[in-house]
C-alpha cells in the first residue's frame, strides 16, 4: 500500500521533472542574476529620474553597462552599492534639489485675465500663456505638485514651493513645468534669484513686485562673479560658493532671497532691519 503510494508519486514526479527539464531546454532564456541584485538595491520609488521606466528597467540597463550613479533619490549610498554589485567605483556628487525660480505669488504679481478652464498649468499655458501678468511666472495650478512622487511641492498664495528636505531630486517637476522655471540646485545653496523673467525692467515692474529688474545691484554686492547677468536677469552661478546675505539685502525688489533650510547656519545672521534701514537712509 505504502509502496504503491510512494512509487506512484515518485513516478509522477519523475515524469513531470523530465517533461519540465525538456521544456526548460526548449524555452531556455538567459537572465543575469545581477539584475535582481541591483533592483533590490534601488529604492523602488519607480520615479524615472534615471531616464528609465522604473527601477527594474534601470537595473537591467546598469547590467548592460550604463552609468550606475543615475539614481537621484537613492543618492550616493545607493550609487555606491549598485557600483559595488557591478564591481565598479563611483564618484559621489552633492545632492541636488528642485527650486522654483519665481517669486510671483498672487499677492505680488497681478492676473491679466480671468482664466476659465482646466486647473492645470500645462493646459492653462496653452490658453494665451496663462493668466499671470508675467509671461515667465509660476501659474500656481500645481502641475508640479501633481507629478511629484514624494509630495515635496506645495502651492502657497498661487506660487509653487519645493520643500528641499523632502525633495528627492527626481527632476519630474523640472520637466513638467510649462514655464521652465523649476531647475535643480545644489541642496546646500541658500541664496537664489527667485525670478526667471527676461523682460526689461519696466515691464517686470509693471507685472510683478518681486521680479528682477536687471539693476545689477546684486552683482556689485558680490566679489567673484557669483552672480552674473543673463540678458535682463541676474543669475546665481551655482558653481561658485556664495555665503553672504549681501545680494539679497541689496536687491530693491526682493527678487533675491535667502531660503531658510537646514544649512542656514552657514550664512551670517541677517542684519537687524532697523539698522539696515538706517544705513540705507544714510547712504
Amino acid at each position, binding site marked *: *500500500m505504502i509502496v504503491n503510494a510512494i512509487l506512484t*508519486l515518485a*513516478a509522477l514526479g519523475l515524469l*513531470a521533472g523530465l517533461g*519540465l527539464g525538456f521544456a526548460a531546454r526548449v524555452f*531556455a532564456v538567459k537572465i543575469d542574476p545581477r539584475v535582481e541584485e541591483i533592483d533590490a538595491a534601488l529604492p523602488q520609488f519607480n520615479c524615472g529620474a534615471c531616464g528609465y521606466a522604473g527601477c527594474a528597467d534601470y537595473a537591467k540597463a546598469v547590467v548592460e553597462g550604463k552609468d550606475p550613479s543615475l539614481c537621484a533619490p537613492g543618492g550616493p549610498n545607493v550609487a555606491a552599492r549598485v557600483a559595488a554589485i557591478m564591481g565598479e567605483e563611483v564618484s559621489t556628487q552633492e545632492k541636488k534639489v528642485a527650486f522654483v525660480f519665481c517669486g510671483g505669488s498672487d499677492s505680488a504679481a497681478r492676473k491679466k485675465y480671468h482664466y476659465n478652464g482646466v486647473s492645470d498649468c500645462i493646459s492653462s499655458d496653452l490658453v494665451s500663456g496663462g493668466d499671470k501678468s508675467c509671461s515667465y511666472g509660476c501659474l500656481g495650478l500645481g502641475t508640479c505638485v501633481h507629478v511629484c512622487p514624494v509630495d515635496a511641492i506645495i502651492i502657497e498664495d498661487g506660487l509653487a514651493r519645493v520643500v528641499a528636505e523632502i525633495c528627492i531630486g527626481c527632476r519630474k517637476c523640472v520637466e513638467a513645468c510649462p514655464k521652465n522655471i523649476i531647475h535643480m540646485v545644489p541642496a546646500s545653496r541658500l541664496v537664489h534669484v527667485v525670478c526667471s523673467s527676461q523682460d526689461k525692467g519696466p515691464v517686470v515692474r509693471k507685472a510683478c513686485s518681486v521680479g528682477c529688474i536687471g539693476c545689477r545691484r546684486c552683482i556689485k554686492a558680490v566679489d567673484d562673479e557669483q552672480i552674473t547677468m543673463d540678458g535682463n536677469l541676474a543669475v546665481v552661478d551655482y558653481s561658485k560658493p556664495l555665503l553672504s546675505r549681501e545680494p539679497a539685502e541689496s536687491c530693491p525688489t526682493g527678487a533675491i532671497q535667502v531660503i531658510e533650510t537646514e544649512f542656514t547656519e552657514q550664512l551670517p545672521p541677517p542684519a537687524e532691519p532697523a539698522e539696515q534701514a538706517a544705513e540705507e537712509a544714510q547712504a
Partner: protein
Amino acid sequence: MIFQEFILIFVSAVLVNNFVLRRFLGICPFLGVSRRVSTALGMSFAVMFVMTMASVVTWIVQTVALMPLGIGYLQTIAFILIIAALVQLVELALQKLSPPLYKALGIYLPLITTNCAVLGVAVLNIQKEYDLARTTIFGFGASVGFAVAILLFAGLRERIELANTPRALKGTAIALVTAGLLSLAFMGFTGLVKQ
C-alpha cells in the same frame, strides 16, 4: 441528448456556477492581474490552458493510477504536483515566447499553481464522477468562466481607475466592491441549469 448535456455542463460552468463569481474560487489572480485588459487576457489564456490540461491529466491519473491502486487519499498531493508541473511549463513557455506578458503577469503566473480554481475543477470532476469527455468540457467551461469574469472585471477596473473614487477606497478596495456587485449581477443566472 448527450450533446445537450455537454452544453448544459459548459453553460453551467461559465455562467450559472461561474468559478469566480459564484463559487469564489481563484480570487487571487482575479484581483491580481485585472488591472489591464491586455494582461487579463494573457492570464485568461494561461489559466485556460492549465485548467483544461489539469482536468484531463488529473482525471487520467485518478482513474489509471490512484483508484486502481486504492490510494485515493493521495488525490490532493498528486493533483497539486501535476498542476505545478503544468504551470511551470506555461511559465517557461511564456518567458520565452512573450516576455512582456511574462513580466506583466509577474508573481501571479507561478501562483496559478495555488489557484484554487484549478484544483477545484480537478476535484469537482472526480466528485461529480464525470467521464473524460465531461471532465474536459467542464474544465474548459470553468476556465472560460474565469476568463469572462476576469475580462469584464479588468474592463471595469480600467474605468474605475479614471474615477473620482475616495482615496481610502482606491485600488483593491473598490475592486472588491465591484467584484461583489458583479457577483450580485451573476446571481440572476441562479436556477438556469438544474443540478
